[in-house]
């Protein structure tokens, strides 16, 4: 595509929502939302980074096979070489393979926990905002109380007691991270519940549940999706925190936070391959999800157009 064509697409996108047209030329245009999202180059880069890491972690092990179950004390702390592209760690695991293996856990737990937090927060916020009155007051005071306790503190206490696996981490993270999305969705619901189409539905005998499911939630989707991306980023960071403090998944499993924690003892030993790759992976993925969230927010923002 030429630069001029690119310019036309941007121009078409700008007006696309206002005057949708039929015809072959218009059908070739990308969907307006995607076009608006694509205008944010950082967000597009974020998608690429996430896609690359998903490929790296889930397809990579098929192309670069390593033993991540058994240790090999004859091959410890080796620098990068043709045999071990990113060297080996303190118990002889291939570091590149470990990065893929740990990334699976970090991404899976981060994505699942972020989504779980978003689902819980969305339902809580929608019900509170729609119901209003004392129900809203009670539900939001619960949220206020929850926010007053640092999530990391709760996470550390629970992790210390239960030594959770990946599934446990997803549940714990989901249960401590839903508070912020619930506030966002509640605010959105407060503005939506008095819209004409919601009032009409109620006047014609529609139930509260139908109002929430058919109108409130679909019209809050932009808020929810943006919140979800930030939740995923936060969840990946929280997993890294917990593992960094030695309370994450147990050997032979690992995640990027655990790898970073193990590698930091080599900070003064020049074994950069134990620190830089997991650290960089965490930074890149978290920044990527934040960039995606930023792009989605811009794309959904009608006032921005």
């Amino acid at each position, binding site marked *: 595509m030429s630069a001029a064509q690119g310019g036309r697409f941007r121009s078409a996108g700008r007006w696309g929502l206002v005057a949708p047209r039929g015809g072959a030329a218009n059908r070739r245009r990308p969907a307006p939302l995607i076009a608006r999202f694509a205008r944010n180059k950082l967000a597009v880069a974020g998608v690429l980074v996430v896609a690359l890491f998903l490929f790296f972690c889930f397809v990579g092990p098929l192309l670069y096979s390593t033993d991540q179950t058994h240790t090999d004390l004859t091959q410890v702390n080796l620098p990068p070489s043709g045999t071990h592209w990113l060297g080996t760690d303190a118990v002889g695991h291939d570091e590149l393979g470990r990065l893929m293996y740990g990334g699976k856990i970090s991404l899976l737990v981060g994505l699942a926990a972020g989504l779980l937090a978003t689902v819980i927060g969305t339902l809580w916020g929608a019900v509170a905002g729609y119901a209003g009155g004392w129900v809203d007051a009670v539900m939001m005071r619960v949220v206020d109380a929850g926010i007053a306790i640092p999530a990391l503190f709760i996470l550390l206490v629970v992790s210390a007691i239960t030594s959770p696996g990946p599934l446990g981490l997803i549940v714990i993270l989901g249960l401590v991270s839903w508070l912020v999305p619930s506030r966002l969705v509640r605010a959105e619901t407060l503005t939506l519940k008095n819209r004409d189409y919601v009032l009409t539905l109620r006047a014609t005998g529609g139930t509260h549940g139908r109002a929430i499911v058919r109108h409130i939630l679909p019209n809050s989707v932009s808020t929810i999706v943006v919140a979800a991306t930030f939740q995923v980023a936060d969840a990946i960071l929280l997993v890294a925190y917990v593992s960094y403090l*030695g309370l994450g998944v147990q050997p032979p499993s690992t995640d990027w936070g655990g790898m970073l924690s193990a590698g930091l003892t080599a900070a003064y030993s020049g074994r950069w391959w134990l620190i830089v790759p997991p650290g960089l992976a965490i930074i890149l993925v978290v920044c990527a999800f934040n960039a995606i969230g930023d792009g989605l927010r811009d794309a959904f923002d009608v006032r921005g157009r």
Partner: protein
Amino acid sequence: MSPARTRLVAGAAALMAGTLLLAGCSGTSDASSASKDSINYALPANFTPNWILPIGTAAHLNTNNKSIADSLWEPLVAYDGSTGKIAWNKAGSVATAADFAADGKSVRITLGDRHWSDGKPITSRDVQFWFDLIKANKAQWAGYNPGKAPDNWTSFKTEDARHFTITFDRSYNPQWMLANELNQITPLPQHVWDKGGDAKQVWTFLNDAAKNIAGYEKNALWQTISGPYAVKSFSTAGKVVLTANKKYDGGEKPAIPTVNLLPFTTADAEKNALRSGSVDYGYIEATDLDQKDSFTAQGYTVKPWSGWAITYMPYNFNNPAMGAVFKQLYARQAVQRSIDQTTLAKVVFNGTAVPGYGPIPQGQASDFLSSVQKSDPYPFSTSAARQLLTDHGWTEQGGVMTCTSPGSGASQCGEGVAGGTKFAMQVLSQSGSTVTDNMMSAIQSSLAKTGIKFAIKTAPVNSVLSQTPQCTSGQSICTWQLSFFGTAGSWYFNAFPTGDSLFQTKGGSNFGNYSNPEVDKLISASTTSSSNEAIQGYSAALAKDLPVIWLPEPVYQVSVVRNGLGGFSQDSLANFHPAQWKWTS
């Protein structure tokens, strides 16, 4: 700027700050605290001195508090490793002789011609004061084990101001009595501390006074001392400054006038202090040993401090699921033969650990070690371990050995092991230690090669201790199978390494409820016989019977000592002795 972008910028800023911090930390510093008049000693990470009294409860009388107290009030018999080998250090003791009766049922002690800092002589009455306090308050005393001191001391008879006799309930091994019991006695300034009332009231009075840390510096109680140092300041935040006792008339005159004992919240903080040059005698972790050159370049010498300790993982013989398997000697042999201690000590511990094959510490040469334990009765061999299991009715199924031939015959799984039982066990291990994590991963891997599943669960060390108590199979708490308190949780012995509390039936620290009547007899004999044959027999028996999984014994700490500080040996009983430190250059 949107919140997300703010996060990105904040993240980038944090990254840059972290990079700069690392870059800053990697530089060297010219700062130095080295001085002929003082020394900065780093206390263990996360330890804050909080007790001054040489008597007290177990919660107070840990190794480091005791080291401080011993610097103020010299022990009657300093039986430790401060002279380079574990023996009676007479220069650091108030007693000059201990003459045991021929029948081993009493000892006559001679005191040196010594004085308190207020000029009054140290007499038999000061020892009896300690004796009476402990007799009356034994349940609260840190050193109490039922049946042992002071239960087995039947009388205290004063002969004159410098001679007294303690009688025992039966004949004892003099070396054991001296090293493990008499070494706990500290002459106390009776003329100052005995404020009237009975021994219980005096105990309460002294312990209450000792709870006031802020008062250590000024309280007149703590000014009458017999040791080489006095307290100059004692901060509730943990910093202790000792100053030389000018009235000290003992054999270990302090060479450095001021000793600063510095607390650190983490080992990393202490390491940074070392790098900045503000510590003269500190430590690094075993995993940092490959940075030895950087410390050497800064004017330090790296000296591993070997401990008089053993490291092990107890089996829970009463566990409902795996207890019956653990009770089979061949199964314990298979586990032990799956663990390559030599490689663990060399690789995971960077060469700062020695393999341990039994109940006697092997970091130092000693007369207690049997040839059986020394020679490793169950050397590492995965194939031999597999053979042991397959010879006893186990077959590998899905990568895990499974009992396919239940019964008590010679080629069957053994009594109580049901058909279909998988050799799968779980350890509850200390969290937060890279060395421990690496060792557990390596053990998990080598056990897997034998066909033994070894799941690892981690928790803070206090949680490990509370979750792995002595129990009976019917109790809900008895679900633990293996326990590991971490490499910092090695068992440190008194000078005479008896196993009465560890491996005797119903011993106080026999967490896994190991029980073997033959071993009980040997333990009892080791404390009463005057020959070393008994304790060597005990060493051989437990090396062969495997009451626990024997693991490499790490050093107490990897010390980093400023060049020019010398004149001392690192006490393998893990005490420090400031009076022995001196600047030699």
